[in-house]
């Protein structure tokens, strides 16, 4: 596939270097400017060594697994919970093959927009629910 020539861009093109790369660099500085202070403000804490004979009372996964964990807790059967998770993962991987309409803007495909917004809201809601239960 041939590379797109400058004239082919509908509303005009800018050179990736330096225009976009500068934005990326600025964003990178902001990212590091947040991450490094966080690393200093939240120092390494003394942690309890693993003990296979004592199960802690409250055990929760990291925040990014909370939604998945919450689904497993809500669905009564483990096998069903696992199936639900597998379906969600496959739906995400194969998204471009089931959402095939040519329109891209949200307002031109209300059904898809509704599914997308509800899914993201559900993920956030399950995560928060998992945090406080």
């Amino acid at each position: 596939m041939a590379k797109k020539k400058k004239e082919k861009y509908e509303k005009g093109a800018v050179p990736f270097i330096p225009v976009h790369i500068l934005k990326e660099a600025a964003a990178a500085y902001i990212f590091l400017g947040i991450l490094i202070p966080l690393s200093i403000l939240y120092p390494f804490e003394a942690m309890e060594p693993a003990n296979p004979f004592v199960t802690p009372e409250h055990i929760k996964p990291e925040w990014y697994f909370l939604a998945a964990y919450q689904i497993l807790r809500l669905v009564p059967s483990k096998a069903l919970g696992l199936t639900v998770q597998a379906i969600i993962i496959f739906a995400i991987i194969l998204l471009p093959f089931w959402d095939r309409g040519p329109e891209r803007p949200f307002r031109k495909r209300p059904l898809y927009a509704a599914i997308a917004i509800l899914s993201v809201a559900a993920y956030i809601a399950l995560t928060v629910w998992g945090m406080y239960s």
Partner: protein
Amino acid sequence: MELIKDINKKILDWFDERYDARGWIRENLTEKWVHKEINWLYCFGGLSFLGFLLQIGTGVFLMMYYIPTPKDALVSVQNIANNIPFGWLFQRLHSIGANAVNLLVMFHMLRVLYHGAYKKPRELQWVSGAFLLLITMAMSFTGYLLPWTQLSYWGATIGTEMPGAAPIVGEWLVHLIRGGAQITGVTLTRFYAVHVVVLPLTLVGFLGLHFIMIRMVGISRPL
């Protein structure tokens, strides 16, 4: 100055004759175009990549001092955090940075989702990206066990129980992941090998595909 210019030209000529260096530089650096309307939302992919590089950098440093045995794991992590020069910083950057990478990858996906940027001709960019998310999460999960604390031990216990619910192969899968019926030192070395070799290599492979396809098709146009 003239001499330096001359040497530069000679070097470029040498590569030009063999690899079309000037053409490559033009196509990929000086005349690589993107849509004029591309904005800040388009930075999350690059930031995820930066986060991943940071994880590799800090991770290699941690590997130099970390000992993957139940007896020494936590002691060695504490040694990194308390005694090794700047060890605390690398340890913190790695463990807080893991959260950051997950967050950045999710933001990147949200941007693509909102723009519908995965539509033809970019379907496989999305598929490879979805795998990158899964690998990122697997990296987080395996890395979480390595300090061998109560939290990581029991977190891994619950996490590795999950595939047990799968029909027929469930039990066998749990046994394979744990290297036994319970989480033991065998699980620790297993997770360590997967965390520092298997997953990073897989991730680099998918990243390569992701980047090559993006380069071939170009960045999608903002709405």
